[in-house]
C-alpha cells in the first residue's frame, strides 16, 4: 500500500510539492523559463512605468524608423514605439493565457471530475459531448466562437478557454478514475462525506499534478491561439497592442521594414519557449519515473 | 573458483565489474565477480533482488547498454573472451550459444508480433535454410503449447504460457548455455513448478548447461548441481549443492536458509530475518559489504573484506569467520 501511495503521488501534506520544487530547481532550463515569465509578468504589471512611450503615442516625424537609441526596437506605421507596444502587449497575452486556461481548468476539471466520479450515464453523456467538441479542430472552434462573439479581450479569453475544456475534462476524468476506488476515498464516504465534499476535498487535490502540467503547457497554447486570432483580426481591437495583431499590421511592410515583423514574433516565441520549458520541467519533476 | 581442473569451464567470469553512471551517482552493480560453470552442469546463482545477478548475466551476453553502463574484467565462453569479440561474433553468441529466459514473461515478448514469429526470428538468425516455421511449431509442442496457438499474440496467452514461449525461444537453437533469470518469480505458485520441471526436462534433453538466477533456495535444490551465493555484486560463497546445503559457511547464506519456512520447524518459532537492507549500490560499505547486517561482525570485517578462499576442498567462502568455526567456538563458550 505504501508503494501505491508513493507511486501515484497522493498528496500528504506539502511534501509532494516540496520535492517537486527541489527537483525543478535542478532543471536549469525550467528555472530560466520561470525567470522569463516573472519578467514578463512584471513588465505587464508595471507597463506604464517601464515603457518609454505610451502604446498609442504617435510621432509623425518618426514613421517606420528602424531601431535607434530613441526607439530601441524602432517605430511602426503610425510612428508608435514598438518596444512600448510590445510591453503593453504582454498584458493581453498573459491575461488571455492565464485566464483562458483558468476558465478551461475550472470547467473541464469539473466536467471531468463529475463524469469520472459518478460514472454511468452521466459519464457517457458528458464525454460524448466532449468528443463532439474534439471533432472540431481547436483553432477553428476558437475562430468560430470569436467571430460569433465579436472582437475584444474578454471574448478572446472565452473563445480560447472553451477550446481547451475537453482536454482538461479527459485528464481529470482519467485521474479521478484512478483515485476513485482507493481506500481513503471509501473511508471518506464511509464517514458520511457528501459527493461534493468528496470531489472537492479528497479527489481534486489528488488529481492536480497532471492537470497543472497540462495547464502550464496550455497557457502557451492559449497565447499562441490569441495571437493567431488577433493576426486574423478577431482579437483585441486597435489601437491596443497585441503581439499577433502587431504582426498582422506589419505584413505590408515586410519588404522594407522587416524589424516590424521580427520583434513581435520574437516576443511570442520567447514567451512560449519559457512556458514550455517550465511545463516540461514540471512534468519531469512531478513524474520522476519517466526520466531515468 | 579455479576449482574445475578436469575440464575447462564453459563460462568463466573473472574479476567482472559493472557500473552504471546515473543522476544519483555511480551504481556499482557488479564488483569483482568470479564465477565459472562447467559444461553440462547447472549452477544456481542465488541472491536478493539488486545483488547484481541479472546484470552479470547480461554482461555475459554483452547486453549492458553503454552509456550508462561500463564493464571491466574478462568473460571467457568456450575459451574465448566475449569482451573482446567483434559485434558479429557477439551476435552469433547471443541466442546461438548463450540464450536467456527473462524474469517477466508479461513484458519480455514483443506485444505486436505473434509468438510463432518471435520463435522463428530466433531460428532464422542462427540456423541457415528454411524450416523456421516448422522449427517454431516443434518448439511450441516441446514446451507443451499446441502449435496452432503460434498465431496468437502474447496478450492472448496466460503468464505461464508466455514463459513457455520464452523457453521455446531460448532453446530453439540449442544453445550450450541457458541463462534463466528468475523464470518463475512472476508466475503463480502452481505454474512455477510446471515451468521448473519443464526447464529441468529440456535441459537434459537439449544437453545445455544452465545458469539459474533465483532467490529461491528450494528451486536451486531441485535442479542445480552447484550453488553460488551473491551479495552486493560479488560472490560470498560457492560450492556444490550438497556441501553448501549441508554446511553453509557464510553468515549471509545461513541467513538465507533461516529465512526459508520449514515444515519441521516449531510453528511458534518466528522466521529468522536478516536484519537491515541490501546496501545502496551507489554507496557500498567499507570492508566486507555484508558487515553492517552481519550478526557476527567484528572490527576486522569493517576494516577489509576477506576475499574468496577455499575453506574446505571445493567449498569457497568470502568470510573472515565462517559459520562452522564460529558455531564450534560458540558451543565451546557455552559448555
Amino acid at each position: 500500500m505504501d508503494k501505491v501511495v508513493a507511486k501515484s503521488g497522493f498528496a500528504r501534506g506539502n511534501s509532494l510539492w516540496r520535492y517537486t520544487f527541489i527537483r525543478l530547481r535542478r532543471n536549469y532550463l525550467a528555472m530560466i523559463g520561470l525567470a522569463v515569465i516573472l519578467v514578463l509578468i512584471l513588465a505587464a504589471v508595471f507597463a506604464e512605468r517601464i515603457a518609454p512611450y505610451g502604446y498609442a503615442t504617435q510621432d509623425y516625424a518618426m514613421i517606420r524608423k528602424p531601431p535607434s537609441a530613441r526607439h530601441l526596437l524602432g517605430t511602426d506605421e503610425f510612428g508608435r514605439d514598438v518596444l512600448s507596444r510590445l510591453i503593453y502587449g504582454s498584458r493581453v497575452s498573459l491575461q488571455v493565457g492565464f485566464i483562458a486556461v483558468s476558465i478551461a481548468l475550472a470547467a473541464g476539471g469539473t466536467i471531468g471530475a463529475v463524469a469520472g466520479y459518478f460514472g454511468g450515464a452521466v459519464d457517457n453523456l458528458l464525454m460524448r459531448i466532449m468528443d463532439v467538441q474534439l471533432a472540431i479542430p481547436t483553432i477553428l472552434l476558437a475562430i468560430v466562437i470569436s467571430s460569433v462573439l465579436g472582437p475584444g479581450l474578454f471574448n478572446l479569453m472565452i473563445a480560447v478557454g472553451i477550446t481547451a475544456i475537453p482536454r482538461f475534462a479527459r485528464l481529470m476524468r482519467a485521474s479521478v478514475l484512478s483515485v476513485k476506488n482507493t481506500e481513503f476515498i471509501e473511508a471518506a464516504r464511509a464517514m458520511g462525506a457528501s459527493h461534493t465534499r468528496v470531489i472537492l476535498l479528497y479527489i481534486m487535490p489528488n488529481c492536480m499534478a497532471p492537470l497543472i502540467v497540462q495547464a502550464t503547457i496550455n497557457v502557451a497554447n492559449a497565447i499562441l491561439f490569441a495571437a493567431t486570432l488577433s493576426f486574423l483580426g478577431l482579437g483585441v481591437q486597435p489601437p491596443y497592442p497585441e503581439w499577433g495583431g502587431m504582426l498582422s499590421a506589419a505584413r505590408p511592410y515586410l519588404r522594407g521594414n522587416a524589424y516590424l515583423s521580427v520583434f513581435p514574433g520574437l516576443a511570442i516565441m520567447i514567451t512560449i519557449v519559457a512556458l514550455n520549458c517550465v511545463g516540461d520541467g514540471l512534468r519531469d519533476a512531478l513524474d520522476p519515473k519517466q526520466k531515468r | 573458483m579455479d576449482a574445475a581442473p578436469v575440464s575447462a569451464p564453459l563460462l568463466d567470469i573473472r574479476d567482472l565489474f559493472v557500473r552504471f553512471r546515473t543522476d544519483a551517482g555511480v551504481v556499482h552493480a557488479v564488483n569483482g565477480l568470479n564465477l565459472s560453470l562447467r559444461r553440462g552442469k547447472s549452477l544456481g546463482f542465488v541472491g536478493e533482488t539488486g545483488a547484481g545477478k541479472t546484470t552479470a548475466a547480461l554482461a555475459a551476453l554483452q547486453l549492458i547498454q553503454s552509456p550508462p553502463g561500463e564493464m571491466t574484467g574478462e568473460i571467457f565462453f568456450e575459451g574465448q573472451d566475449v569482451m573482446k569479440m567483434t559485434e558479429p561474433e557477439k551476435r552469433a553468441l547471443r541466442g546461438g550459444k548463450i540464450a536467456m529466459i527473462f524474469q517477466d514473461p508479461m513484458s519480455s515478448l514483443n506485444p505486436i508480433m505473434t509468438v510463432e514469429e518471435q520463435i522463428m526470428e530466433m531460428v532464422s538468425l542462427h540456423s541457415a535454410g528454411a524450416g523456421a516455421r516448422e522449427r517454431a511449431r516443434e518448439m511450441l509442442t516441446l514446451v507443451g503449447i499446441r502449435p496452432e496457438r503460434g498465431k496468437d499474440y502474447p496478450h492472448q496467452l496466460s503468464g505461464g504460457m508466455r514463459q513457455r514461449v520464452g523457453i521455446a525461444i531460448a532453446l530453439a537453437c540449442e544453445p550450450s548455455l541457458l541463462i534463466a533469470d528468475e523464470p518463475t518469480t512472476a508466475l503463480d505458485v502452481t505454474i512455477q513448478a510446471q515451468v521448473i520441471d519443464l526447464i529441468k526436462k529440456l535441459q537434459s534433453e537439449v544437453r545445455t548447461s544452465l545458469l539459474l538466477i533465483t532467490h529461491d533456495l528450494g528451486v536451486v535444490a531441485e535442479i542445480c548441481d552447484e550453488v553460488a551465493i551473491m551479495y552486493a555484486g560479488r560472490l560470498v560463497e560457492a560450492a556444490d549443492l550438497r556441501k553448501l546445503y549441508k554446511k553453509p559457511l557464510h553468515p549471509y547464506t545461513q541467513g538465507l536458509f533461516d529465512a526459508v519456512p520449514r515444515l519441521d520447524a516449531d510453528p511458534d518459532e518466528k522466521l529468522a530475518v536478516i536484519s537491515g537492507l541490501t546496501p545502496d549500490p551507489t554507496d557500498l560499505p567499507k570492508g566486507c559489504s555484508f558487515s553492517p547486517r552481519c550478526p557476527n561482525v567484528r572490527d576486522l570485517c569493517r576494516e577489509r573484506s576477506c576475499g574468496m578462499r577455499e575453506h574446505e576442498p571445493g567449498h569457497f567462502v568470502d568470510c573472515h569467520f565462517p559459520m562452522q568455526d564460529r558455531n564450534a567456538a560458540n558451543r565451546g563458550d557455552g559448555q
Partner: protein
Amino acid sequence: MRGMRGKARLLKYIVRRILLLIPVILCVTAVLFTILYFTPGDPAHIALGQEATREAIAAFRAEHGLDDPFVVQLGRYIYRAVVHADLGYSYIMKSPVSYELSTRIPTTMKLAFWAVAFSTLVGIPLGVVCAMRQYSLLDSLTTLVTLLGVSMPTFWTGLLLILAFSVHLEWLPSMGFSTPSEMVLPVVTLSGSTIAIIARITRSSMLEVIRTDYVRTARAKGQKERVVILRHALPNAMIPILTIISMQFGLLLGGSLITEAIFSISGVGRLMIEAINMRDYPIIQGGVLFISVAFCLVNLAVDILYAFVDPRIHVK
C-alpha cells in the same frame, strides 16, 4: 482458421468505428448550425444591404425559409447536407456553399497532404536518430530546434521564411501554390511545428521502448541493432506517434487557414477568412463542417491503422 477469425474481428472493429463516427458528425453539424443561428445579425440584411426595403427583406426571408422554427431549419440543413451534399447558400458570394468549397478543396487537400507527408518523413527519422544517440550533439541540437519549433506561431514562421527566401535570397516565390517552387514555402511553414512535435514524441516514445524487456529479448536473440530498432522498437513506438500525428492533423488544418492567408493560396482556409471578415456565416459553417469531417476521417484512418499495428486493440 485463426487468421480468418482475426480478419473478421478487424473488419468488425472498423465497421463499428465508422458507425460511431456518424452521430459525432451529425452532432457537430447541429452544434455549428445552432451557434451560428443564434448569432446576432439577420442574413437578409447582410445579403440585401442596409437600404433594402422591408418588403424585400420579408420576401427574402420567406424564400429562404428563414421564418421557419429553429428545429425545422436545423432539420432541413442536415437533410440537405446528408442527402444532397448541399451546405446552404452564400448570400454574399451569391453562390452555393458546396460549390465554393468544392472549387477550393483540392488545393487545401494538396497542401495538407504534403505538409503531413513532409513532417512525418522528417519528424520520425529525426526522432529515432535522436533516441539512438541520446545526449549526443545532434540530439541536443534537435531538442533545442524542436523546442523553438513548437513555440513559433505558424504566421510568424511563414513571414520569416518569406523574408529570408523571397525577399532577401529571392530563391522562392512568396505567393501561389501551383508550381513545385511555389509549394516549398507554404508546405515548410505548415509543417514546421508538426515536424517539431513529431520528432519530440518519436524521441521520447523510442527512448521508452528501447528500454523495454522485449527489445532486450530481441537483442538477446542476436538480432542486429538496426533490425531491433526497425522491427521491434519502432512499430511499438508508433502507437503514441500515430496518436500525435492524428491530433496534429487538426492543428494542421487550422494552420492551413493561416498559411493560405499568408501565401495567398485560394483554398478553403482563405475562403473562410474572407467569409469571417464579411460575416458570411453559411460559408463559415460549411467550411468548419468540411474541415471537421476531414479531421474525423483522418482520426478514423489512424485508428484503423492502429488496429493493424497493435493487435491488442481488435483481438480480445
